[in-house]
């Protein structure tokens, strides 16, 4: 797949909540070629502070207008600066990067925790015309952490929202609600699970899926310097057919079969 590194115009940047932003950039090439699960490396300014680009999952594309979108949360210096950029300004954007989610089944269970929902939104949106059965679990701490609820409702067969404080949807951890649904037999066995969220959630989902014999793929996070396989910095340990080795989250992932991941700590 071709990679692009271009100075792209910011088409829009809007705040979805106090600390969550929706950014659209103009990049016809990336918009046309990217697929769900892939990500971008964005240089938030032209300075050496921060030095490195920041990785963001692709949230949606508008290929007709040549637009690629991300949704991001302000958690530190880089995302703060990004949130202060304005439409009409330009950003260096590298992408599309990484391996996509691979669909092998008719029944998809997408599980997005917090700011992990964007790649799953993209996946649901991307294959909406393909007549699959898509169930979307979307969890956050409170209702202020739930975005694009209407769109998701439209493109998924079923949307299950969970919040830790019960301010929207079911009350509880997304993993608990998922387990409950598995136990009550709502989910059929031949479904495939795709998840993205905080590491603790991903680990838990992965172990639940193993227990229930569900195939599952997970999109991982890692600190990244390059995003392209140059630095070897973003490794995760996997064990596959008895062989234990490091894989690059940026190049071999970010999407992995979750049963090969060795979860550390």
């Amino acid at each position, binding site marked *: 797949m*071709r*990679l*692009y*590194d271009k100075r792209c115009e910011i088409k829009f940047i809007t705040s979805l909540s106090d600390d969550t932003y929706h950014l659209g950039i103009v990049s016809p090439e990336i918009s046309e070629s990217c697929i769900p699960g892939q990500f971008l490396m964005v*240089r938030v300014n032209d300075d*050496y*502070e*921060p*030095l*490195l*680009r920041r990785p963001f999952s692709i949230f949606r594309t508008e290929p007709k207008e040549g637009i690629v979108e991300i949704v991001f949360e302000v958690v530190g210096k880089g995302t703060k600066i990004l949130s202060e950029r304005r439409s009409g300004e330009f950003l*260096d954007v*590298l992408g599309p990067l990484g391996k996509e989610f691979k669909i092998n089944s008719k029944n998809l269970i997408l599980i997005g925790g917090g700011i992990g929902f964007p790649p799953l939104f993209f996946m649901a949106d991307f294959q909406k015309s393909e007549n699959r059965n898509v169930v979307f679990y979307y969890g956050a701490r409170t209702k202020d952490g739930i975005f694009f609820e209407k769109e998701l409702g439209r493109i998924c067969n079923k949307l299950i929202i969970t919040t830790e404080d019960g301010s929207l949807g079911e009350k509880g951890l997304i993993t608990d609600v998922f387990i409950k649904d598995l136990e009550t037999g709502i989910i059929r066995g031949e479904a495939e699970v795709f998840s993205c969220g905080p590491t603790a959630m991903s680990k838990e989902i992965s172990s639940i899926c193993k227990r229930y014999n569900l195939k599952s793929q997970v999109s991982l996070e*890692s*600190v*990244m*310097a*390059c995003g*392209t*396989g*140059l*630095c*070897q*910095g*973003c*490794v*995760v*340990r996997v064990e596959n057919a008895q062989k234990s*080795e*490091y894989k690059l989250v940026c190049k071999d992932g970010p999407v992995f079969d979750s049963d090969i991941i060795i979860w*550390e700590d």
Partner: protein
Amino acid sequence: MVDLTVKIGDIVFKNPVLTASGTFGYGDEISSLIDVNSLGGIVTKTITFSPREGNPPPRITETTAGMINSIGLANIGVERFVKEKAPIYKSFDTRVIVSVAGETIDDYCRVVEYLEKEISADGYEINISCPNTEKGGIYFGSNREMSRNVTKAVRQLTSKLVIIKLTPNVTSISDIAGAVADAGADCISLVNSFVGMAVDVETRKPKIKKIIGGLTGPCIKPIALAKVYEVCSKVDIPVIGIGGISTGEDALEFLITGACAVEVGTATFFDPKAPVKIIEEIKEYLNSNNIKNVSEIVGSLIQS
């Protein structure tokens, strides 16, 4: 037309800008982004005899205008390198320098011997300066005798370009450089990364699993430049400058100070086209200063 070529030993580089070891993979990773053939050359990820999986994560962390890495010389080993990567280089129209490391002098020699037999690189960069391994690496490069001995041993195995890559984490880098030059090195490259550390004050854990790692990027440039100045003042063989070079101006500082070429490292991470841009910016500088040949500015520092 300005002439950008530089010659080190018998090898002519089409321009003085190479990619630094460990920051450009094996050379084929981002070939859809930049044309490797526009580069003066590439230095491969450091190759060891046996494959190395490298250090446990987290391996990298960002610091002010820099980053710390603790990759630990993760590489596929010389055998797979020869089989899987070297064939690609046949189609490259640029110089390929293979970076080599080991834990003992024998280790270094085994890799070079293997490469001599199997492929035809333009030269070797002998990495005696990696701060992220328990043996070899920085422990060789911090010691005059060891540095001399590795150089001698490798020199005997090849007539190709032998570049010795030095660590800046020493009291007198020119002392080590002198020893290495006497032992038959064609060229010295410097600097490798600085030993550095960062702590997460909330968890009270080091941000790098192995606690310390190698600091690189714009923050180290002034120290690297001073090291190049020191070595160029005291040692007679050519020097390749490395350390924080991110723009044409940065590269020019090193050339003016006396380096005959430069390697670009961390900059390629945040700006994959940096090596190519740097070549363009050097060209523009020469043009606008009416300098015909890049070698005219090498060592042209005015020390009044």
